[in-house]
């Protein structure tokens, strides 16, 4: 079913895409985990948490981009998928994948809270999007 998009829908779709890009690009740049390897040359645990967030972020970006491109009701399905994915992403740092030892380390003090906050925002905006779409119907 093809239909014209409302301004509010387009705005929420753009916000979702931006948040997903910030999460994906951020975890490799300004909200990256601790950079150094351990003395034994192995990556620290938080590196893998960062990689997992990057993967989930890429999926969120793809979903959000599809929501912006598509015009049918499948966008609601994509928004629902975004909510699930964002919730899972929020649990990656330190719940699903362990982070480093001290909470003052970068993975605890920067990456973990930033990933949680951005994931919550993605889930919240996706919920708003579903409400807007439902009202439209």
């Amino acid at each position, binding site marked *: 079913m093809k239909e014209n998009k409302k301004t509010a829908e387009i705005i929420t779709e753009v916000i979702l895409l931006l948040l997903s890009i910030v999460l994906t690009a951020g975890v490799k740049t300004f909200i990256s985990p601790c950079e150094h390897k*351990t*003395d034994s040359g192995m990556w620290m645990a938080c590196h893998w948490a960062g990689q997992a967030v990057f993967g989930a972020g890429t999926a969120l970006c793809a979903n959000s981009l599809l929501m912006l491109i598509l015009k049918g009701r499948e966008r609601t399905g994509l928004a629902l998928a975004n909510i699930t994915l964002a919730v899972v992403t929020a649990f990656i740092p330190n719940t699903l994948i362990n982070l480093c030892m001290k909470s003052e380390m970068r993975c605890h003090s920067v990456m973990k809270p*930033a990933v949680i906050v951005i994931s919550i925002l993605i889930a919240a905006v996706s919920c708003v999007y579903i409400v807007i779409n439902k009202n439209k119907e």
Partner: protein
Amino acid sequence: MKSLAAKNLKGKPLRTAVLVILSALLTFTVFGGTVIVESLDTGLASLENRLGADIMVVPYEAATQKKFEDMVLQGSTGYFYMDSSKLEMIKNTEGVKRVSPQFFLASTSSSCCSVAVQIIGFEPETDFTVTPWIKKSYGKDLEKLDVVVGNDLNAFVGDELSFYGVKCKVAAKLDKTGTGFDTAVFTTEETIKELIRSSLEKKMNDFKDIDPENSVSCIMIDVADGYTAEEVLNDINLHVKRVKAIQSAEMISGVSDSLSGVSGIIRILMTAIWVLGIVILLLAFTLSVNERRKEFAVLRVIGATRARLGRTVICEALIACLSGGAAGICLGILIILPFNDIIEQMLGLPFLLPDAVSIIKYVIIAVILSALSAVAASGTVAARISRIDTGVILRGDN
């Protein structure tokens, strides 16, 4: 009336957005500023409680290089030792009620996913500073190779931690204190001596000419009644060589000075932003009402009372400010609470978030302040609009 106010706000989305953003910033400033100031105060109180001793004696070089203060305040790792004979000398000093030695050791970051942590060993028979805190989290005595971890360490009860190849069991996790002790590991003298022995066997530590078996790092002193900490401190500094006695209150007063400076600046900024915000809100409402004088005159003509016009203006302001206030509080919660570790590192001061009840109290205060500023900013404008001369305005003679 609510519907009219809501429709007015909806009709001018740009103006409404500006009002909402402005009040969001105001509420964020008040809420965020209050939480930060309170966290600093709670952190200082926690540090005062946590030190527990009147005087602390460390080797002279540890005090001059600020090693000890950095360990307490910043959680930096390090170790220093002095001969345990100093303990006997201090014990015999007049005015000393009780003493307890502590042993420091910094773990290495050799094992995967681990980093250097400060290990603090205490003598269970004499200790009066660490044990009361451990008792709160762990009712029993620590067995050999049992450790208690600070709240900021990513280890939990039952976990096994390896220090210098010695596997230790996490018996308890302490409550958060907002100080450097949150990243430390506490254990008994027996265990820490075992770790020191292992580190020497593995050649991972170099104690030079110091014999770790007959050394202590720090001596905690409780002053007897009838004596002042200054008297005992001066006596120790005069008569016990190559040590430095530090008064806990003195160390805290340095932190307290920095803290009151930071808190003062935050309070001044909060007040300045709040006053400025109210002035901007007042201007925004005045401009908005001035450009809608004809609209209000028409409302008067079709039967709206003066009081109703005033109430509509105030209601508009309340809706805009409370929405903005809610957004500001959400922003504050999303920034300050999750990022408290980085704020603590940036401030470099003891920082302990207030409990949930206090945070809810600050949320309520911020909402009330937001509503009051809306009423204050729109009240004068509402009073003026209720006195408009309908005839003059509709004729266009204003």
